């Protein structure tokens, strides 16, 4: 497997979303992508946050040559900003966001921080004849949330036109979904490897993009991994028990303020 390069043309690409320091899930996802014959891989950013021992993520990415788009978290950690730029206003959400940001910042080595500073804001490549723009939040803003229930198709179409692309691939919300419109246009939110999709299962998700008969086929892949081991590691690192609960139950317990009503109602909290 190689990293997706700007300007490259591919037929089968594994697209990973936010890793949030979940190195166990990242390892399992890379193995899965290799076994499915992915020719290239890309990660859409937010390597740290939430999980334990952020430095464990980097060797996996380097070893497999996964290219990385800069997420808001990576930007904050690389530049040493005060917070993660998720924009929480709820005091409880803010409390947890701050805890995980400080933990991640303190436990990311200077070497990895400087590597993060080199991540590009977007990577454009081709899947067959289709132009693909890979970004973190949206093509216009790294920390823009695009949720299924809050993103009109005409809005996506404007983004695709403004940024002159057929397909937009992003992450940032943590819930995978996709929309197709027009002849070949599509938006794909690849979900996140870092934590479950707030659906009551412990699996995490990535997206396999493949050119099939000249069009883009998208397969959302659930990844089962040793989440119990991750929970133990999180407790060893004294991360909040609320975070551990999410890993063990598949339900989000914090940072819920950003969810639209429809997505929030589908979860437990």
């Amino acid at each position, binding site marked *: 497997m190689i990293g997706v390069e700007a300007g490259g043309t591919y037929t089968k690409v594994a697209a990973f979303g936010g890793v949030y320091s979940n190195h166990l899930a990242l390892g399992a996802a890379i193995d899965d992508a290799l076994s499915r014959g992915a020719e290239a891989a890309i990660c859409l950013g937010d390597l740290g946050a939430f999980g334990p021992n952020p430095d464990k993520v980097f060797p996996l990415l380097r070893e497999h040559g996964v290219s990385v788009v800069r997420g*808001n978290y990576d930007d904050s950690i690389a530049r040493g900003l005060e917070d993660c730029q998720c924009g929480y206003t709820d005091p409880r959400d803010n409390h947890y966001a701050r805890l995980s940001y400080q933990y991640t910042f303190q436990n990311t080595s200077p070497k990895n921080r400087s590597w993060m500073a080199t991540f590009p804001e977007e990577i454009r490549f081709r899947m067959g004849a289709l132009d693909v723009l890979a970004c973190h939040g949206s093509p216009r803003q790294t*920390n823009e949330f695009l949720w299924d229930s809050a*993103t*009109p198709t005409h*809005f996506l179409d404007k983004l695709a036109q403004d940024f002159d692309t057929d397909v937009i691939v992003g992450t940032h919300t943590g819930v995978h979904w996709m929309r197709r419109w027009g002849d070949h246009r599509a938006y794909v939110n690849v979900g996140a490897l870092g934590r479950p999709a707030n659906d009551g299962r412990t699996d995490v998700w990535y997206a396999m993009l493949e050119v099939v008969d000249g069009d883009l086929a998208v397969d959302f892949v659930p990844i089962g991994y040793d989440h119990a081991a991750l929970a133990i590691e999180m407790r060893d690192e004294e991360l909040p028990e609320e975070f551990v609960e999410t890993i063990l139950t598949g339900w989000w317990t914090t940072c819920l303020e950003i969810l639209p009503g429809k997505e929030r109602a589908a979860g437990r909290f």
Partner: protein
Amino acid sequence: MGIQLPQATPPNSTPAPSADVEEAPTVELRALDQLWFQVSGTVCNLRCNHCFISCSPENHSFWFMSRDEVRASLDASVRLGVKEYYFTGGEPFMNRDMLGILEDALALGPVTVLTNATLLPQRTVDALAVLAAASPYTLEMRVSIDGVTAEMNDAIRGDGSFDRAIGAVGRLAAAGFLPIITTMQTWSEVETDGILAAFWDVLGKVGYDRPRLKILPPLRIGAEASRDRGYDEFERVTHDMMAEYPAELLLCSSARLVTASGMWACPILLDYESGRLAHTLEEAAARPAVLAEQACYTCWVNGAICSNMPGFAADPA
């Protein structure tokens, strides 16, 4: 229900005169992310004493929008790539076409209704639940409650409004909604935990057990401050003040308001001629907002505080 802002102008008094519109700084629209509809004009069943546009049953300065009028702007919004729709008033559910209007909007994108929740009997809640379930997009009910007791709330919003709103919140929750309860912080920071607990308690009693509570921070200039100071020295936004200012913090950089009488730069300037931009949405999107009013100064100090969640419009990053 309109947006309530503790305003620099005392309620129900003549607004301060506009600055010279020619001289005032302007803000271009970056992208039309939020399209607001003054769907019930200035007509409201309540007469809250902090309503920044003094809505009431008798205030007919802006009239109801018809379903066709709304649909014309919705069509235009598709061409402009709008991200979300907001319906405000007055009280939106005073508009007899409201359910049809919501059906049209929900076919296109996510919708937030700002309501006082005093006109939501079971049959309306049931109809809303049907609309919400039929749409791929979210329908957010944003309910303003000004206090955790009837005494606190009704002193501002009128007798009986607390019980009626809380009752409707219970019906909405039972129908699967997670209404956003907004309340203006009128207490000191140390009391916040107690107030939040009291909200959880009162909402839990009507069956809303995971409330989305949004405390609007106290604005950094308030009615009291400017009342003392009088009108001849009130603040304005100047060109110098805009020089280094991130204009994306202002709602007018990403929103427009549609009314039965034309297009405005933002919902806050409804009472001001300088806020009026054009007849059609396309024209209004092409024209910059004019920051000639004292209300603009309040925005300048506080940033966008009207949207639901962190996002493009409200995010400084």
